[in-house]
């Protein structure tokens, strides 16, 4: 059940009504409704994994209370329970997501050196959303251990934090310190927050259904039928993909945040106009922020603190290791490992030259847009990111090699016909215009509202309905959200 489906709409209307209407000012009942909705939603998506989610919640609820109980009193037991939480969280991920990858890697390494291997992979079903909810579980453990939060003694509230239905499948990855306090008090319906949420959902639908899905009509076949595409077409597919990915994933994030606002719950921000980054560091600072923020706090910072006496080289080591983990978080494949490594390596020139530390504001021209020098840097950064995404998009290292090989050798093949590519190119052009539009709204949370010249409240509402109708009319056949696979 995807967020932009009719089924979700029916489901959400029921949850929404039960959430606000019959249980006025009763926070416990409101949280129970939310939890029932979240488990129903997860059950519809992955019924077999409900026990796993339920047991994980119970175990980490217990661990959290134990860490708090012994914190500042018994360092050994605090560490034992903290490590237990970390090991169980990472263990869940390793078993469900990486176990077969390790077996395959060991097996192929043994074969490569001429040894016979009897290792076999297991039939392990990957629970949907596991990368997201295990990171929440680990975050909860570490925040209690660091003394930043107190353990939750409300199992319903804690369960809601882990299983919150708008974010369980694809994030953003909320932090307990900001999320749990919201569940401690009754959320009354707030008209302004709710309408803001509706606008953000509509903005997400524009990005996902109108832009990403239409660009996918061009990009996805290019990747499926690599040998039949000309080099030029494949290059276009590389250039188009970051926009598709951004519109897809940030569109989902906008919808999740918007649904949260309808329930008067604030969800973490995930994107902050990344295409205006002038180097890879600025880019990543604003891309999938809830994941990069998580890894910054729990991996990069401890590593960087530990190796601080090695100066820039210590920081480079911490950055590269963090990015390899960011890559691996996306999936159990060498393509993702190399994707992360590539992103990490791009930091080296920045760190060595000192450019990383000089945070200069973007220079604007008379029209209020970036000056040519900064614009050039943005385009170059986009290009660097596009190249890295070959590894992200390719199903295997061999396939990414085939893709690059086809780019070099397929210059003689005919271009795809105008009728085949006119629609995606139109939507790519439209998405470029949307990014210009984002520039004009870069200080806002999201870049969408009725034009200011429409003063009447009635006509502003009409405007949103017209946009909604346009999205439905021009939406491509819905494709799965790219980040659901993680």
């Amino acid at each position, binding site marked *: 059940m995807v967020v932009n489906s009719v089924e979700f709409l029916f489901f959400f209307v029921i949850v929404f009504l039960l959430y606000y209407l019959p249980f006025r000012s009763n926070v416990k009942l409101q949280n129970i409704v939310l939890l029932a909705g979240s488990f129903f939603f997860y059950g519809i998506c992955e019924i077999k994994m409900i026990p796993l989610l339920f047991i994980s919640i119970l175990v980490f609820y217990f661990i959290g209370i134990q860490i708090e109980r012994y914190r500042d009193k018994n360092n050994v037991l605090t560490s034992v329970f903290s490590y237990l939480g970390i090991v169980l969280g990472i263990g869940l991920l390793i078993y469900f997501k990486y176990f077969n990858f390790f077996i395959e890697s060991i097996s192929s390494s043994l074969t490569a050196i001429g040894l016979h291997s009897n290792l076999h992979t297991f039939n392990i079903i990957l629970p949907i959303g596991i990368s997201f909810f295990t990171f929440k579980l680990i975050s909860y453990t570490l925040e209690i251990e*660091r*003394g*930043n939060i107190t353990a939750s003694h409300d199992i319903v509230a804690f369960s809601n934090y882990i299983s919150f239905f708008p974010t369980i499948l694809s994030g953003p990855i909320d932090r307990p310190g900001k999320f749990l306090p919201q569940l401690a008090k009754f959320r009354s319906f707030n008209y302004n927050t709710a309408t803001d949420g509706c606008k953000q959902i509509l903005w997400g639908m524009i990005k996902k259904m109108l832009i990403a899905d239409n660009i996918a009509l061009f990009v996805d076949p290019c990747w499926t039928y690599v040998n039949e595409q000309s080099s030029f077409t494949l290059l276009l597919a590389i250039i188009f993909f970051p926009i598709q990915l951004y519109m897809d994933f940030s569109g989902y994030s906008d919808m999740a945040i918007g649904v949260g606002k309808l329930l008067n719950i604030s969800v973490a921000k995930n994107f902050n106009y990344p295409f205006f980054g002038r180097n890879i560091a600025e880019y990543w*600072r604003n891309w999938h922020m809830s994941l990069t923020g998580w890894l*910054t706090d729990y991996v*990069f*910072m*401890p590593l*960087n*603190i*530990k190796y*601080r*006496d090695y*100066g820039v080289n210590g*920081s480079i080591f911490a950055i590269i290791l963090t990015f390899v983990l960011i890559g691996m978080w996306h999936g159990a494949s060498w393509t993702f490992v190399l994707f992360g490594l590539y992103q990490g390596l791009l930091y080296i020139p920045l760190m060595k030259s000192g450019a*990383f*530390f*000089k*945070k200069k504001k973007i220079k604007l021209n008379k029209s209020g847009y970036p000056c040519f020098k900064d614009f050039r840097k943005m385009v170059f950064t986009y290009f660097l990111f596009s190249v890295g995404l070959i590894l992200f998009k390719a199903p295997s290292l061999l396939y990414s090699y085939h893709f690059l090989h086809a780019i070099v050798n397929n210059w003689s093949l005919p271009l795809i016909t105008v009728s085949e590519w006119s629609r995606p190119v139109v939507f790519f052009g439209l998405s470029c215009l949307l990014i210009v539009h984002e520039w004009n709204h870069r200080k806002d949370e999201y870049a969408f509202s009725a034009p200011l010249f429409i003063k009447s409240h009635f006509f502003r509402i009409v405007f949103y309905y017209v946009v909604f109708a346009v999205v439905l009319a021009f939406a491509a056949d819905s494709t799965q959200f790219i980040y659901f696979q993680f």
Partner: protein
Amino acid sequence: MSRSEIFEKLNEIFIDVLDLDEIELTDDTSADDIEEWDSLSHIQLIVSIEKTFKIKFSSKEILSWKNVGEMVDCIESK
């Protein structure tokens, strides 16, 4: 060293490391208040503070600070 002297030295370090024109640190100042203060410049600040005050922080101490006031408390305790 008094608390105000620590603040004075910290001001100098922050201006130098973060390349700022001026800054007035208070107990409540945190990374949210200074755009240039990110995860990487944080480490540079710590290295510079350790050199200036000739002290060494533990990882646990560094990770526990929520604002400048807690950082100063930690320096005072050394």
